[in-house]
């Protein structure tokens, strides 16, 4: 039991100490965004990975949360600490709405309807210019403030720890989910839907709960994102944002707790390093995605397993070798 805690403790310990090692704001910014991505992608993994539902509306939930937070805290002067609850609320409600048609559909149709939902939200944001700022985006969202402390001070270190805390909560919640009867039901539905129903699992209720649960994470992350970058843009509904998040998920490995997190962190740094390539970086990204799908279907999280198999094989080889 204690052994399983070693890796998480090391991981979060190292991340908690990162600001002590560098106060470089560039590193900090990339780290904050990477942590928020890790939260979002972990949430996506609940529907896509554990639930097996091809939900392409997940990033729209993130954008909806960012807009809801921005509009309520700026236009309607809600205190900035309400951002996270507002973001979660908006995201969960939207997830339940998008889940309703999904209950009736399968396969590619789920992808199309959830993608269509994102496009519909996008059109709404463009159309409601007075409310959302239209295609130029929503700006000057008030930063997060607790008591008298503005999270913008001290080089935004507060945001870093908020994002890290979010990720810690995410890991704890998803860990509990994976080891709970609810989590097993979700996975049972993914493994074999008719069989799951034949064992008394209520498809609609479990699926709605899955969507609501997975929406918590983009909701919270979207709120913090909006308060950190102080802006929301309709590009957040776009294809490229979606593709980035999906690449992270695939890179890390679908259906594991740590895969999406590792994927998000690695991909964030990787994508930042590729910036000088200009449009060429999309070429590299595309090739990397296809290569992962082709050669590492389980993503980075499948590598330890592959390594173990390889080692076993190597050991076996050595054991066999001395025999006559």
């Amino acid at each position, binding site marked *: 039991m204690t052994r399983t805690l070693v890796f998480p403790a090391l991981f979060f310990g190292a991340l908690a100490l990162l600001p002590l090692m560098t106060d470089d704001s560039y590193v900090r910014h990339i780290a904050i965004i990477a942590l928020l991505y890790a939260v979002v992608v972990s949430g996506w993994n609940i529907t896509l990975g554990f639930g097996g539902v091809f939900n392409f509306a997940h990033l729209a939930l993130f954008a909806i949360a960012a807009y809801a937070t921005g509009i309520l805290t700026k236009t309607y002067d809600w205190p900035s600490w309400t951002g996270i609850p507002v973001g979660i609320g908006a995201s969960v409600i939207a997830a339940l709405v998008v889940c309703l048609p999904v209950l009736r559909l399968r396969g590619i149709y789920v992808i199309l309807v959830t993608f269509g939902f994102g496009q519909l939200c996008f059109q709404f944001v463009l159309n409601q210019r007075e409310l959302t700022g239209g295609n130029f985006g929503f700006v000057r969202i008030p930063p997060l403030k607790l008591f008298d402390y503005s999270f913008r001070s001290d080089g935004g270190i507060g945001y870093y720890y908020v994002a890290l805390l979010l990720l810690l909560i995410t890991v704890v919640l998803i860990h509990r989910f994976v080891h709970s009867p609810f989590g097993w039901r979700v996975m049972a539905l993914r493994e074999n839907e008719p*069989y799951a129903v034949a064992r008394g699992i209520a*498809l609609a209720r479990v699926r709605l709960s899955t969507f609501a649960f997975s929406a918590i994470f983009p909701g919270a992350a979207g709120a913090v994102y909006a308060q950190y970058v102080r802006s929301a843009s309709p590009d957040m509904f776009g294809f490229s944002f979606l593709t980035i998040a999906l690449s992270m998920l695939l890179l890390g490995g679908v259906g594991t707790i740590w895969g999406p997190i590792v994927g998000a962190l690695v991909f964030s740094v990787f994508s930042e390093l590729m910036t000088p390539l200009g449009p060429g970086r999309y070429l590299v990204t595309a090739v990397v995605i296809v290569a992962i799908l082709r050669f590492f279907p389980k993503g980075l999280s499948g590598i330890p397993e592959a390594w173990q198999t390889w080692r076993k094989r190597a050991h076996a080889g050595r054991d066999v070798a001395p025999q006559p």
Partner: protein
Amino acid sequence: MSLLTVSNVTKSFGALRALRGVSFDVHRGEVLGLAGPNGSGKSTLFNVLTKIPVGPDSGRVVLDGVDLSGLRPHQIVRQGLARIFQTETDFGALTVIQNVLVALPRGIGRDVRLYALNLLEDFGLADQADRPASEIGVFDRKKLMIATAMACAPRVLLLDEPAAGLSKPEVGAMAKLIKQINRQDVAIVVIEHVMPLLLDVSERLVVLDFGEVLAEGLPGEVVRDPKVIEAYLGSEAQAHA
């Protein structure tokens, strides 16, 4: 006394009339055998009874006084009508015991794990409780499927070819298992092509042909019914043609 009453159930797929007014009763505590040539509508009958994926076009199914027509598939299971599928089915990514745990109804008691372990013990699967279901043997997977059905606390259990693909000793073990379950006051309807098993466990036999009940009665009498023999021979002849 009738526990499950099936009256006048029909089901069509386009022009194909798979079930044409099927009626029969399942009595409390009995094992009812369901026989018939391939394509006679046996598995379709199980499908429409449990509404997986959809219920009958018309007709009534009443379980212990409750009309099932208004219920959704998972509610039917909770009402006490559970089934196994023809092929070994499981939640491969879950462990053996988790396969059982997801099927347990709420309010089963405080220590659900102990309850599930006891259930697995009955099926000789307790020592594999924490292995992924995808890693256990074929016979074990078959037993696990029945164990998960039992986890649903059924009053009527529908078994679709439990002996398919099993070795001779395994068939014997399966027959024992069915009788053992039956002793726990669970009525059983069993579809089976392995005739010795069917005749061994069944107290009564219903024979379907072309979606209709062809014969019904004691196993020994039914198998000697000329209509039944002809139906089987006819399908044999077709198969050889």
